C-alpha cells in the first residue's frame, strides 16, 4: 500500500508534552483558587443551563436502561415504568409538558384547548423546536466561552499548537457548514423525545395505549379516540388519502413532515431514527477508533513482525465486502439475544466497529510511523519510560487529530449502511424507527401526492453525510493544512457506506 506521510510539526507536537511533564508549577485547581471569579461565573452559568434540563438527562438514563430490558433478567416492566415516570416528574424546560402541542378545538373555528398558550399546534411546535435549538446553541456557546476563559485565565502556556488548529478552523467556512449540520443532527437525535409533534411511544410504538381529544364536525362536539384508530384514518397512501408535510390531519394533529402510510407521524419517526443512527455511528466509531489507535501506536513503535501481522489482519478484514458481511451477520444472528439488545443496534455497532477499524488504522499509519521517528520518542526511550507510556503520552496525542478526521468522514458511511440495511428489511427491528425503513415503505408512493415519505428521509441522509464529510474536510485542513488529497483512500471506501 502506498502511504504518504504528512510533515511532522516537531516543535509543536512537543510543546504540550513538555509542559505536562516538565517543571513543577501550580496545578489547575490551584490556579483556579488563585483567581476564582471567571471560573465561578462560568460554572454557575453551566449549572443553570444543566438544571433546566435535568429531567431530560434522567429520562434519557431511564430510556437507556429500558433498552437493556430484554437482555437483563432482573428488570421487570413495572420497575421500568416506575423509573420512567419518576424521571418524567422532574420539571424540564424543553419537555412537551412545558410547551404542549397536542390539543383540540372547542368548535369548528373555536379556540385551541390544552396547547401552549392556546395557540394552534403548528406554532406551539415551532416555539418548542426553536427553543430546543436556541438552548443547544447557547449551551455550546457557553462551552466555547469556558474554553476561552480557560485559555485566558488558567492555561500555563500562552500558545499551543491546538490554538492554531482552532484558528484555522475558524476561517474554514466549508468545515463550519459541516459542523452546523452535524450539530443540528446531533441536537435532533439528543432531544428526539421533545422534538417531534408527538412521541414515539404515543404515536409509533404503543398507539392503542393513548387517547387524544378532537373536535368532530359531524357530532359538533369534542370526541375521544385512541391514537391507533386516529392513525388508521390519517395515513398517506397517494392521491386518494394523504397528509402532506406542514398540514393537519382530521384529528387536529400537526405533521411537519406529513405521515407514513400507516398514519404515524414522519417527523417523530425520523427524530427517533436519528437517535439510532447517531448512536450506532458514534459507538462503532469510538470502538474502531480505539482499536485503530492502539494498533497504529503499537505497529509504529515495534514495527517488524507485529506490523506484518496487523497488516495481514487488516487486509483480510478489508477484503470482506462490508455490506455483504453486515447482511450475513444480521441474518445469522436473527432471533438471538444479541440481536435484541437495543433492537439490534448493539450487533450492528459491533460488526461495524470490527469491519471499520482497519480503514482508520491505515489512515493514521503514516502519521504514526512518522511520529515514531521523532526525536522526543527517542529521548523518552532513553529516559527509561515504558513503551506503554510512550505510546499513550507521546504518540497518541499526535495521531488523535488525524483519527478524528477519518472518524468524521466514516460516520456518514455508517449512517448510510445502517439505512441501507433497514431498507432491505434487516438490521434495526421494527417498529423501532430507522430512516431506511421510511424510504422503503414510501417507495410505491414516490410519484404520487405522498412523495414526502421516501424523499424527506433521503434528503436528510444526504444532508447529514455531506455535513460529516465537510466537517472532516475542515478538521483535516485545520490539523494539517498541507495534506490535501491524502485522505482519498479511506474517504472513498468508507464514506460511501460500503456501497449502500
Amino acid at each position, binding site marked *: 500500500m502506498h502511504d504518504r506521510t504528512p510533515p511532522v510539526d516537531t516543535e509543536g507536537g512537543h510543546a504540550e508534552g513538555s509542559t505536562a511533564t516538565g517543571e513543577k508549577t501550580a496545578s489547575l485547581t490551584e490556579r483556579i483558587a488563585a483567581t476564582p471569579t471567571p471560573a465561578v461565573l462560568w460554572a454557575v452559568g453551566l449549572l443553570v443551563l444543566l438544571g433546566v434540563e435535568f429531567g431530560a438527562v434522567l429520562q434519557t438514563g431511564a430510556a437507556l436502561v429500558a433498552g437493556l430490558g430484554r437482555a437483563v433478567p432482573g428488570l421487570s416492566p413495572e420497575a421500568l415504568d416506575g423509573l420512567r415516570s419518576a424521571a418524567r416528574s422532574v420539571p424540564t424546560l424543553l419537555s412537551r409538558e412545558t410547551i404542549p402541542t397536542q390539543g383540540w378545538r372547542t368548535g369548528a373555528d373555536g379556540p385551541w384547548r390544552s396547547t401552549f398558550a392556546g395557540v394552534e399546534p403548528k406554532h406551539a411546535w415551532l416555539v418548542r423546536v426553536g427553543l430546543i435549538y436556541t438552548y443547544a446553541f447557547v449551551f455550546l456557546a457557553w462551552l466555547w466561552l469556558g474554553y476561552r476563559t480557560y485559555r485566558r485565565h488558567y492555561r500555563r502556556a500562552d500558545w499551543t499548537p491546538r490554538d492554531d488548529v482552532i484558528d484555522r478552523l475558524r476561517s474554514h467556512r466549508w468545515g463550519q457548514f459541516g459542523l452546523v449540520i452535524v450539530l443540528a443532527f446531533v441536537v435532533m437525535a439528543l432531544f428526539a423525545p421533545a422534538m417531534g409533534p408527538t412521541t414515539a411511544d404515543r404515536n409509533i410504538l404503543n398507539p392503542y395505549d393513548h387517547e387524544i381529544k378532537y373536535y368532530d364536525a359531524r357530532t359538533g362536539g369534542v370526541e375521544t379516540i385512541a391514537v391507533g384508530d386516529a392513525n388508521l384514518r390519517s395515513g398517506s397512501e397517494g392521491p386518494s388519502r394523504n397528509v402532506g408535510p406542514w398540514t393537519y390531519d382530521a384529528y387536529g394533529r400537526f405533521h411537519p413532515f406529513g405521515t407514513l402510510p400507516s398514519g404515524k407521524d414522519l417527523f417523530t419517526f425520523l427524530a427517533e431514527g436519528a437517535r439510532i443512527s447517531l448512536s450506532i455511528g458514534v459507538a462503532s466509531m469510538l470502538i474502531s477508533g480505539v482499536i485503530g489507535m492502539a494498533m497504529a501506536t503499537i505497529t509504529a513503535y515495534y514495527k517488524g513482525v507485529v506490523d506484518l501481522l496487523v497488516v495481514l489482519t487488516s487486509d483480510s478484514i478489508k477484503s470482506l465486502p462490508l455490506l455483504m458481511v453486515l447482511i450475513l451477520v444480521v441474518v445469522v444472528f436473527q432471533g438471538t439475544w444479541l440481536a435484541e439488545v437495543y433492537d439490534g443496534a448493539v450487533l450492528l455497532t459491533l460488526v461495524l466497529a470490527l469491519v471499520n477499524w482497519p480503514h482508520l488504522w491505515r489512515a493514521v499509519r503514516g502519521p504514526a510511523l512518522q511520529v515514531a521517528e521523532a526525536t522526543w520518542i527517542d529521548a523518552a526511550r532513553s529516559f527509561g519510560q515504558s513503551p506503554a507510556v510512550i505510546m499513550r503520552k507521546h504518540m497518541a496525542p499526535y495521531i488523535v487529530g488525524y483519527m478524528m478526521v477519518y472518524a468524521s468522514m466514516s460516520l456518514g458511511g455508517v449512517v448510510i449502511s445502517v439505512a441501507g440495511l433497514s431498507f432491505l428489511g434487516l438490521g434495526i427491528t421494527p417498529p423501532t424507527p430507522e430512516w431506511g425503513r421510511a424510504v422503503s415503505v414510501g417507495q410505491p408512493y414516490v*410519484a404520487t401526492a405522498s412523495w414526502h415519505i421516501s424523499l424527506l428521509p433521503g434528503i436528510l441522509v444526504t444532508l447529514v453525510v455531506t455535513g460529516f464529510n465537510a466537517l472532516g474536510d475542515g478538521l483535516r485542513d485545520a490539523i494539517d493544512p498541507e495534506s490535501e488529497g491524502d485522505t482519498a483512500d479511506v474517504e472513498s471506501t468508507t*464514506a460511501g457506506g460500503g456501497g449502500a
Partner: protein
Amino acid sequence: MSRWSYFARRVLLAVPVVFLGTTVAFLIVRLGPIDPAAAILGAQQVGSPEYYQLREQLGLTDPLWEQYIDFMWEMVTFQLGRSWVISPGTRVNDLIAIYAPRTIWLGFWSVLIALCVGIPLGVYAGLNPNTLGDYVASLGGIVWRAMPNFWLAVIIVTVLSQSQALVGVDWERLWVSTQVVTPPDLSVFARPRILITRPGEAWTQVAVAVKQVAPAALVLGSASMGNEMRIGRTAVLEIINADYIEAARAKGVSSRRLIWKHVFRNALIPLVPIITAEAFLLIGGSVLVETVFAINGLGYLFFQATVQGDLPLVISLMYIFILLLVAANILQDFLYTLIDPRVGYERS
C-alpha cells in the same frame, strides 16, 4: 528493495489475506446460531429422523476442523458445492455462471459512466479553480456522492417510469422501447458471431441492453463519480502549481512531453486508490441497486441466498467477492508500481 520485488511481496501477501478472509466468512456461517439442516427442512422438522439423516448427509456431524479443511479445499479447487434452497441440487458454479454476466454488464457500465463524467469534470474544475463552474461541479460532486444508493435508485426509478408526466419525455419509449425495472437482456452475447453476421439486429439488442442497465449503472457509479471528480480536481490543482513543472518547462521539456510525462502521470497517482474503492462500492452496492432495479445478478443472488439460508451459495459467493476485492487490490499495487517510481524505495 526494487519496485518489482515490492510488488511481488504484495502479491505474496494476498494469499494469506484470501485465506483469512474466507476463514472469517466460514466462521460467521458455521459458528453462528444458524442451523443449515433446519434451514433446508423448515423449523418444524427439527428433531425428526429426516433431520438427523440430513445432518449426517451434509457432514454437519463431523468435527468442525474437518469441515473447515474440506471447505477450504473445495474453495481452493473451485468445487463450490450445490445450492440447497434457492435452486436445490444446482451446482453453485452453474448458478454463478447464470447470474454473473448481468452483474458484470452493470459493473462495466457503472465504471465507464463514472469515469467518463467524473474525471473530465474534475480536470475542468482543477483547471478553473474558484470559478462558478468549479463551485457548481464540486458541490454537485459532493452531494451526488453523499446520496445513498438505494434512495437514489428509488427516486430514479420513479422519475424514469413517470417521465412522461414529470419531464415530458417518455424514457421507456425513448429511442428503443424498454422497461425501467428489468434485468438487461444479454442473450446476444451468447452468440457473439451474430454481431458480425447480422449486425443491424444484434447491435440493436446491445443498445437495448445498455439502455436497460444505464439508470442502475448511473446509481451504482454515483459514489465513484464523486470521488473521481474530487480527487481529479485536487490532483490537477496540485500538479499545475508544482515547482517541478516550472523547472521542467524552464529546462525546455516539450509541452507534449510535459503534459504526458510530468502532469498526467503524476495526476494519476492519487486516482489509483479509487480502483479498490470502486470494486468495494460496486460489490456492496450491487445488493441494493439490483434489488431496486430487479436485476437478478450476483448481489441479488447473495441477498436471496442469505435471507433463505442457502449456506453453500452464500459462502461461495462471499469467497468470489473476496477474490475480486483482493484482485482489485493487486491491480492497484500493480498500477502504483507501474506509474510511481517511489514505490518500494522509501520503505524497505
